[in-house]
């Protein structure tokens, strides 16, 4: 198990380094001179030189790269051009909001997916199955940047139950969490249904039924627990995806998280912040995926052996 953890850690670190390197080269992909793009047409040559020196862009590229990597190790992501603040401070301020949104969306997804998936599996091939699978297909197909405005239209503007945007009020998180969690709920419901259907054909379920266990126990304990394993994996992998999907949801609801900071910084051409946000979200995603694999390996010894 220790060897497995070390190998996993190595792979997480390796991928994080690759992502860091890609993010570093991102600014050099800007068509033309990044400094001119950031400052706009009215900047004086003196301002341009100052910014070039502040960003270290006058140095040879390999020196820049070494500076950048040393900075990363010390959690130094540079200075925001717009806020005139360290990027790491800005991110530390916004990251908990994004994480909160992602976790709430995950809870919403679980609350919707479990009843739907179980109901569909227990009535496989009958109308509840068709209904819940159609609902989940619609859930996958609704883009969150449309679902969000629709929820605002009905629940905020129409019924006036929930706030339109922001994060100050106690129930501000409800609509963003539903918006972000719907697609995941749909994927989870389908996974859970498929997984349950597979488990219910196993011998041990037949044995449990044959020895006269009540069906609530057969399905609730024997089938569900075994069907959960693949679902847990998907859940972990999707938590990372939620962090990425949060970008759009945060823009829709003006939610003060990393995604909103990212999009605003793109519009302001504040590239150090753009780089920082992309790096932090990606590394969070990679770390969560690594942890999921670890949990999975711990739950299922076959994975450890296979690796």
């Amino acid at each position, binding site marked *: 198990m220790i060897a497995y953890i070390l190998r996993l850690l190595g792979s997480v670190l390796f991928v994080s380094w690759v992502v860091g390197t890609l993010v570093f080269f991102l600014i050099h992909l800007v068509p033309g001179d990044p400094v001119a793009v950031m400052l706009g047409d009215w900047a004086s040559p003196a301002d341009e030189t100052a910014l070039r020196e502040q960003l270290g862009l006058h140095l040879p590229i390999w020196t820049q790269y070494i500076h950048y990597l040393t900075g990363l190790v010390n959690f130094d992501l540079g200075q925001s051009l717009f806020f005139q603040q360290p990027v790491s401070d800005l991110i530390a301020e916004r990251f908990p909001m994004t994480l909160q949104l992602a976790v709430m969306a995950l809870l919403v997804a679980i609350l919707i997916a479990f009843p739907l998936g179980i109901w569909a599996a227990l009535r496989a091939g009958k109308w509840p199955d068709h209904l819940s699978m159609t609902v989940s297909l619609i859930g996958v197909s609704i883009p969150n*940047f*449309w679902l969000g405005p629709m929820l605002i239209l009905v629940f905020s503007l129409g019924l006036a139950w929930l706030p339109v945007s922001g994060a100050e009020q106690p129930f501000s998180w409800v609509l963003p969490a539903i918006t972000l969690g719907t697609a995941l709920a749909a994927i989870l419901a389908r996974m859970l249904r498929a997984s349950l259907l597979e488990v219910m054909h196993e011998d041990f379920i037949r044995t449990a039924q044959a020895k006269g266990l009540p069906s609530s126990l057969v399905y609730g304990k024997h089938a569900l627990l075994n069907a959960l394993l693949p679902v847990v994996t998907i859940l972990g992998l999707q938590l990372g995806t939620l*962090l990425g*999907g949060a970008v*759009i949801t945060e*823009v829709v609801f003006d939610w003060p998280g990393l995604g909103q900071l990212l*999009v605003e910084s793109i519009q302001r051409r504040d590239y150090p912040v753009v780089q920082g946000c*992309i790096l932090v979200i990606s590394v969070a995603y990679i770390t969560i995926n690594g942890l999921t694999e670890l949990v999975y390996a711990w739950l299922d010894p076959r994975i450890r052996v296979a690796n």
Partner: protein
Amino acid sequence: MLKIFSYLIVIAWLVLALFGFLIGDDANTVHLDAFLAEPSYQAWLGSDELGRPVLERVALGAQTSLFVALGVVFFSAIIGTSIGVLSGYLGGWTDRIITKVIDVFLAFPGLLLAIALAAILGPGIENVVFALVVVGWVGYARLSRAQTMSIRNREHILAARALAVPTPIMLYRHVLPLILAPLGVEATFGIAGAVISEAGLSFLGLGVQPPEASWGSMIKEGTRYLLVAPHLVLAPGIALMLVVLAVNLIGDQWRDYLDVKTRSVK
């Protein structure tokens, strides 16, 4: 029933994209007197904040989404499949390096990579296609690699190898035809994914620029008038959702048809 529905929607999407210009050529003409007009006989889906007819704008958006979807799926499938087939067939070091590259791409949140690329390269439809191809080829590469590995020791391939058939011909004539079906399913879901991603990038202001229309940018502009003119958000949103739903349904049907296991359950 659902089958007919999904094919009808896709046909409607194609017709709207290819022949939308026949409805009228004033999708970009400003009529300030028709500011936020509700649906009426003159403008079936109403007018937007510049008085432009929403129906024509939706048709223009259909064009954008079709162009991006076909471009993204075409290039991703060709690039991804070539790399995947080569990797799976050759094995050894080539395979190990390519697998590592695929792993790195899979470890990166796709939407975020597309946002980053589109942000850096600047807005525009070609950059959207490029960004989505950079993200999209991995799926085809992984799938075609796995498929190739599962068939590379089949008798007909061993026989062809014994006859010294050159590798390119081998891959094209003896490997590719056997793995096309699952790749087709992947491409179908890829179309749905590209349509949503293009609209998402345009929603964030990173896709096509005004006066060109995208369903995503129409939704974005429409949200400002949500209370007074909800049709601005409803029309492109419903079009987008129906197309994605229909394409996903078709993908589901093809996958179920190919999967012998689910076919026997039914």
